[in-house]
């Protein structure tokens, strides 16, 4: 499974190069903004995949880390000079806070069985949402506040490239992470925690590490998201964000890293076009209902997600080819014997 990650890097480099060249060949501002959103949510979904896909942890509180990143960057850029240096500092600060927070939350909650853990993260995330709403002096509550992005990012193309760069970097880091001995243990934990413990692993440590890694990269996505809007309010901490990450991961294919990127692409495009159809067809004013139906159908008919579905087809083809080779072997052997 892990070794399969290496070979496809060539195609990913080509894809990244095409995406990097896109704004220089297209003058569609809408498409540039949409692709930027896809890059950001792909980072969030990949971070969620570390939890769900690689460690088997279902969290309903992932938006908390996204929100921490969004608010840290927004508050620092709002209160300090909005320079590139300050942006980088704010991203680092957000990741640090999210890392500490996910470490503490993980240590407190990951001893619990999976469904209790999911409920606990939901409660914790709700607590942070309420805190953000009530701490008006800093967050301005649900009204939120606007702030200035660094001058470099005033240019949408530059921010697009920065978001793409972050996506590629996060993908490479997480690919390395899941292919490392640590990644192997996480997969083992996902498959059977007791079996992993009986090999001598203190599984709680590995689960907390996965939680920290996921929290840190979710915070990065949050920082980028707030800069893309140049606005932040408490919606960055709502359950909707966690559900988006969850569905992007499931629709793309859990435990694949590339799947969440595809999932983010499909969902962001679907959201964009379904809501756009409302201009011509009033029924699509309720596009969220159609979206819900798409989700249900996807989970019923593609439980392994897009990547899982493609892998299944490839495995079937390989299986048929192997069977065909096996079937031919006695014939070839007989011919060889005939020929002496």
């Amino acid at each position, binding site marked *: *499974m892990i070794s399969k990650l290496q070979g496809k890097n060539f195609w990913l480099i080509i894809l990244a190069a095409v995406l990097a060249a896109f704004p220089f060949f297209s003058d569609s501002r809408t498409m540039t903004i949409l692709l930027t959103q896809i890059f950001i949510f792909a980072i969030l979904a990949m971070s969620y995949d570390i939890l769900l896909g690689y460690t088997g942890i279902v969290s309903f509180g992932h938006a908390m880390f996204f929100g921490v990143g969004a608010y840290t960057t927004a508050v620092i850029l709002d209160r300090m000079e909005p320079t590139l240096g300050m942006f980088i500092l704010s991203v680092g600060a957000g990741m640090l806070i999210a890392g500490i927070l996910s470490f503490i939350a993980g240590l407190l909650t990951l001893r619990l069985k999976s469904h209790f853990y999911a409920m606990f993260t939901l409660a914790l995330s709700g607590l942070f949402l309420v805190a953000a709403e009530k701490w008006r002096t800093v967050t301005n509550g649900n009204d939120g506040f606007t702030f200035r992005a660094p001058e470099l990012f005033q240019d949408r193309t530059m921010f697009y490239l920065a978001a793409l760069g972050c996506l590629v970097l996060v993908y490479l880091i997480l690919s390395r992470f899941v292919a490392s001995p640590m990644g192997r243990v996480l997969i*083992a934990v996902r498959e059977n925690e007791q079996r992993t413990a*009986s090999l*001598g692993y203190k599984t709680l440590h590995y689960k907390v590490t996965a939680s920290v890694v996921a929290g840190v990269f979710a915070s990065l996505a949050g920082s980028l998201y707030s800069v893309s809007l140049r606005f932040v309010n408490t919606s960055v901490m709502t359950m909707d964000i966690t559900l988006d990450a969850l569905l992007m991961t499931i629709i793309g294919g859990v435990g694949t890293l590339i799947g969440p990127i595809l999932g983010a692409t499909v969902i962001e495009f679907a959201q964009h076009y379904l809501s756009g159809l409302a201009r011509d067809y009033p029924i699509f004013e309720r596009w969220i209902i159609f979206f819900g139906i798409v989700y249900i159908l996807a989970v019923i008919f593609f439980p392994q997600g897009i990547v899982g579905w493609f892998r299944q087809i490839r495995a079937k083809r390989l299986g048929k080819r192997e069977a065909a080779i096996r079937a031919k072997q006695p014939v070839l052997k007989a011919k060889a014997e005939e020929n002496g």
Partner: protein
Amino acid sequence: MSRLLTLENVHTHIGQYHILQGVSLTAEEGEVTVLLGRNGAGKTTTLRTIMGLNPASSGTIHYDGQDITKLPTFSVANGGIGYVPEDQAVFTTLTVEENLKVAMRKEDEAAMARQDYVLTLFPDLKKFWKKEGGHLSGGQKQMLAMARAFVNDNRLMLIDEPSKGLAPIVIESVMEAIREMKKQTTIVLVEQNFSMAAGVGDTYTLIDDGKTVQNGRMEELVRDEELKRTYLGIA
């Protein structure tokens, strides 16, 4: 010879159920101790209790002179006890290579040498080196599960029903591997197939309704028709 493992009057509860109600056994260093008994007697729970997967509610477990009764599973394993659970328990989405690597406490020269040795015991695994565990046959999975426990320098191996659900020809190669392993480590084996158990076992512990009924040398049990009929249903 010295006692490597001793269980004294061990009781284990799983939820509200009192599964082990007084299991006592000893495993001498360098020997194969076979746990025998009917289905549901408590053999698997005994192994799981030694590993700390179902902690003992009372009684004591001593390994190499140390009390390990209350130790968590990972500490028990790191103390040098390898565990091969029943039902060909491999990591299905990891390849054969990754299954062995994840089991290694250290990826040093000694571990690699042990891996090479394990591959001589189970040459099939080399053929399917890059194949995911879930795509192996039942026999190959069992071999991988045993190989995984053997890549570390474990002094004691707990092996749970290695022949369960396997074809006779595969069972023979699994038993052959256990005989080889016996030269290097102490084994506590749960095995339903009495003739297989008698073929590799030096001593036995007979468990019935969660209690130890009898301990002794395997050759004595082979001769004791009454005991075999009463507790193992062998006529």
